[in-house]
């Protein structure tokens, strides 16, 4: 398994644990009354669907999809790392900013870059993997 895929899959596992632990805390009656946790539902959803599911798919796709070429079998390594960095930094910013906004604070300083970073991550991944999705 190449280093990029190892990083993506391990980060996905970290987000899975973090997301499901957050889910546990959200169900504890005493904690569930806290405004911060009542506002955490969208964050929980995105930790699991983006941090875990989508990141795991990206890691496995970059590893196992048909080869780009003999010289660069997995396409651009650099774009792969851009995807990894942007996706995880974007999620971290979301984790900070989203519950805060739900509580009425202005957290656009975190959420605006979070949105841009996650979109850049997706764009870099799709651009990188698109030529590898072809008939053989």
């Amino acid at each position, binding site marked *: 398994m190449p280093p990029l895929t190892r990083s993506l899959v391990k980060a996905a596992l970290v987000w899975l644990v973090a997301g499901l632990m957050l889910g546990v805390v959200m169900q504890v009656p005493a904690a569930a009354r806290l405004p911060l946790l009542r506002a955490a539902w969208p964050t929980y959803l995105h930790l699991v669907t983006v941090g875990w599911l989508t990141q795991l798919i990206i890691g496995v796709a970059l590893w196992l999809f048909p080869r780009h070429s003999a010289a660069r079998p997995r396409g651009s390594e650099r774009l792969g790392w851009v995807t990894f960095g942007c996706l995880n930094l974007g999620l971290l910013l979301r984790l900070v900013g989203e519950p805060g*906004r739900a509580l009425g604070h202005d957290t656009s300083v975190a959420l605006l870059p979070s949105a841009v970073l996650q979109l850049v991550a*997706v*764009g870099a991944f799709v651009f990188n993997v698109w030529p590898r999705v072809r*008939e053989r």
Partner: protein
Amino acid sequence: MPRLSVWMVRSALLALVAGAALGALLLAVPGLAGLARWRPLHAELLLVGWTVQLAFGVAYWILPRFRQGAERGRDELAWAAFLMLNLGWLLTGVGRSVAGAESWALAGRAAEGLAALAFAAHAWPRVKPFR
């Protein structure tokens, strides 16, 4: 990668880009007029258009093939699943986002259900030991 998998995976990648772009707007500028109502389309694009469709595409590609007859079995069912799934997320996403189009959502969910049935019927015989 077989032709149908190319169609499914590329459609899934396009749904990922569209869903992520809509999601980025919802996160960055939630107050933008009329934007919040498109949240169901964002969810349909990413849950059905991206993840379910990608799983279909990869499964069609890598599940065990047959030695005799058509190597991937009943292709027409898999193609039907591809068409119904994409019709399904589109109708459901728009139907749940636009006032007055609720009946589209019901048709969309029905299309998604039929897509699941068609793909399950295609894939079922291919879930077998390698020989």
